[in-house]
């Protein structure tokens, strides 16, 4: 035993002498990737312009060109089909972020019709997505309640706005925004006002919007409370949009993704919703109702 001890001590010491002893990283291959078309288009029944943003995705390690913004695809073809028939061909505009558009003679309309958006490009192939235009929501009232906000554990907004919706039977999703419309030289400028809600049917959406899943009040009238620190103003309005499920899921998941970026490895990964076949992004439709906020 006494003879062995020095051998073990030598082994113990020498084992830490290797050239790359503390080099504990190895390069590994990422998951396989193929560049794809990325479509973003949001159409409301009252719009007279249809915009499409057409970009492309890249592999997760391709950062050289990607750090400076989306890679726009301006040499593609973008077409919109209504119930299987080509309705519009969108033209490239060279603008960003929506780089294809078509101007309509009237509002989009199309209630109940099915639309297919098809984008193609020589090397990236063809990507498609489908939507059905939905009916505008029935927005009954929006009433401002000074100091009526419900405090929660983590925030306290002083004022409340009670919004009543007449929900139709079936699967319904909504997006709510509180805005202040100011008119200057006949041009309406819309300012978003930040709102929150502790209602269990709501979740936070992008651009300060509140998303509502109508499943729990299907076919009923429902009043939910928004909280805001905005003071009452006669120009305050509520935009209530009936939105497709794809709009709802995309807005919710992209919001969650953005929020999770703050927590990096500690947050669970978020799959951003897509309804694009052979591509990424979203083609979404909605219909909007607008109402002024009444003073209590």
């Amino acid at each position, binding site marked *: 035993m006494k003879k062995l001890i020095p051998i073990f001590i030598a082994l113990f010491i020498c*084992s830490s002498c290797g050239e790359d002893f503390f080099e504990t990283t*190895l390069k590994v291959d*990422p998951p396989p990737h193929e560049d794809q078309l990325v479509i973003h288009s949001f159409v409301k029944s009252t719009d007279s312009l249809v915009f499409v943003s057409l970009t*492309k995705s890249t592999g997760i390690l*391709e950062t050289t060109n990607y750090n400076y913004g989306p890679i726009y695809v301006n040499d593609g073809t973008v077409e919109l089909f209504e119930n299987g028939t080509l309705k519009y061909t969108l033209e490239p505009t060279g603008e960003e972020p929506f780089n294809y558009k078509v101007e309509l003679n009237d509002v989009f309309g199309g209630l109940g019709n099915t639309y297919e958006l098809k984008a193609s490009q020589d090397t990236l192939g063809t990507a498609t997505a489908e939507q059905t235009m939905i009916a505008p929501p029935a927005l009954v009232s929006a009433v401002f309640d000074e100091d009526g906000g419900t405090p929660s554990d*983590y925030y306290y907004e002083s004022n409340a706005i009670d919004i009543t919706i007449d929900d139709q039977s079936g699967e319904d999703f909504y997006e709510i925004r509180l805005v202040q419309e100011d008119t200057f030289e006949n041009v*309406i400028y819309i300012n978003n006002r930040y709102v929150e809600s502790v209602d269990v049917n709501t979740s936070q959406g992008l651009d300060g919007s509140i998303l509502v899943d109508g499943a729990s009040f299907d076919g009923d009238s429902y009043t939910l409370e928004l909280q805001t620190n905005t003071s009452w103003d006669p120009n305050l309005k509520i935009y209530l949009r009936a939105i497709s499920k794809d709009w709802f899921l995309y807005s919710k998941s992209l919001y969650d*993704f953005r929020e999770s970026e703050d927590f990096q490895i500690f947050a669970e990964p978020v799959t951003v919703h897509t309804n694009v076949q052979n591509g990424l992004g979203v083609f979404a439709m909605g219909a909007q109702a607008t109402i002024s906020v009444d003073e209590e």
Partner: protein
Amino acid sequence: MQKIKSSYRPIFLLFFSLFFLATANGQGKNKFTISGYIEDATSGEKLISANAYDTKSENGTVSNIYGFYSITLPSDSVVITFSYIGYQALEYRLLLDKDLVINVKLEPELSLQEITVVAEKYEERIEETTRMSTVDVPIAQIKKIPALLGEVDVLKALQLLPGVQSGGEGQNGLYVRGGSPDQNLILLDGVPVYNASHLFGFFSVFNADAVKDVKLTKGGFPARYGGRLSSVIEINMKEGNINEWHGAGSIGLIASKLTVEGPIKKDKTSIMLSGRRTYIDILAKPLIEKSFAEGGGSGTAGYFFYDFNGKINHKFSDKDRLYFSIYTGKDKFYLEETYKDEFNGNSFEDETEFGLGWGNITSALRWNHLWTNKLFSNTTLTFSRYSFNTKLRSYSEFDEGSDEYALGYLSGIDDFAGKIDFDYVPNPSHFIRFGAGIINHTFKPGKFDILFEEIENGYPSTSIDTTLGQANINAQEFSAYIEDDMKLGKNLKLNAGLHFSAFRLKDKTYPSLQPRLNVRYMLPANVALKGSFAMMRQYVQLLTNEGIGLPTDLWLPSTKRVKPQDSWQVGLGLAKTFAGKYEVSIEGYYKEMTNLVAYKEGASFITLNDWEDDVTQGDGKSYGAEFFVQKKKGRLTGWVGYTLSWSWRTFPEVNLGERYPFKYDRRHDLSIVASYEISDRINIAGTWVFGTGNAVTLANSQYYGVFPDVNFPNFNSARINRTDFYRNRNNFRMNAYHRMDIGINFVKKKKRHTRTWSFGAYNTYNQKNPFFLFTDEEFNLETGESKTVLKQASLFPIIPYFNYSFEF
């Protein structure tokens, strides 16, 4: 409380009919009972699952966890053999004409020495037992397994068994048959241990010197167990030598241990005390203080953990014994720094304090009572506490005033419990267990104390002193069970039982009835065909970002919104002992789990949301096959375990509702454990493990998400956000994991003690095993371009160890 579902009534009727029929059977006259305790002759430690077997009638029984046995036989001459692995068997030839009490003391076998055969051994072989999916790992074997930094670890030894996986490199979390670590009921002397980890999961809280027995059950759960879906790990502390004083200790690289045990009153009262503490903080203290001083200030920092186990038992009579056991352990990280300076004639002083601590306390008071020679009871009162706290304080003092900021956080769980268990052995064909219990849980989901105070010219300019967080939750968990180990004819054995549980919150009660069944049928050539069915329910869960093993992990109850988790599992297997020493089993299993809990996409434990808003519930499914060969006797001991398995999760709000592989879905998992006694003085041991790489979620591609702002489409305006796209959760496999550990022990008996030098190495061939993946920038000097690459980080290279231990 809801009424028991009518669909359960036939199960009740069937079970109770069987029960009464069975206990009535064999109650005829001219039968007598032999009962008593089976214990180690030298230490007086009670032997668990020791055998008492009548070779004439070919009937036998086993001792319970308190060493008690009872066997009722016809009035006749009987030849009773008492045996236990590692002990010399003892034979009694008797004319049984009255009830007898025989307290048996078995002498340990001395390894590699000539053994005088006192009696031919009858040992209950794997094919004899009804239960399947259960493994006993002798603590002596665990102590020989080479370990990280030489620190013997009970839980890491269990990870080497088939059906059990580790979470990540060095972690002691157990993933049993596709379940998560919170689905394991870890019992230390019958008390649940909520956080079994030291040092962020690299070491377990169980000091092997204080442990007597370890048993893992991963399926075919008997009715006496409940409360978790995936496994039960029973760890029993030593009782303390009742005959003479002994001790053991060790000095290792990171910790030292000392255990003493002995009689307070011989044959009546014994005590065992065991402690362990790390000392890197003490050794490094001068260096750390010097480092602070060199920076111009003063301070200290360090980390340590400790454990203390204590147990005292007193024998009032042959009918009454009392045990009191306690465990307490804590991890603590601390940092204190003070810095003083002057600038332009103004002096200032900064103080910073940071503390992080977590730990468990468990204690149990147990009373054994022998009502008759066939009816044994154990009454237990327990207390268990897990708490985590952190403190951060910063104080600055300057000529005009001072600033103070402090943040404290406290979370944890307290349990008070009481239960009573009965063992009733009416005849050799039945071993009936029944009992009931109640646990009062107090969950502390997390409380923040915040202090923020600024003082200028003697007057407070800003002052906030508040407490934020979620209220404590109280809940009661009730349970009752009955089970019978039945022998129905020569070839058929059955363990049938019912477990009832209920969980009561302020506004909701969840009842549950869970049938359990284990069947063994002996095929020709002594091959046992075994099957099992078990339904389980779990009312508590651990909210954790899987795999990291942080002490911030929160134990939380089922609530009105968060439903209890349920599972059902079936198993089918074959078992046989070859050549009297190789236990071979092959088992297939299928398990479905519902109402599993996971963080929603994007959620994190760091957020301050109500935890119920951050979680989602879904289902899981796992299935596979396990192959196990174990050799417990001889110079060469050890096992080979192989698992082929699949494990899936489906959560409506995760992965777009599509099924995805569980993070610890591991297709192949192989462990080889061997130790060899070269001589009385030298033994070597080695392990080799191989496992399919863990599943991780990597983005498939990246793009910019676009969302129109409120002025769209009147203006071509939108918010854009760089977005990673994950096609599927857990879509990428890290590299396979494999590692070999080798150790050698040199044992020498001295005049007053035995000492052992242990040497070895963890990860002997320095395999760079995956710990996590990350992206990195690589700069090419020749082209001047940088490139993003994906890299795998490893944690432990080869880590040699040595350890000195002694016994006296």
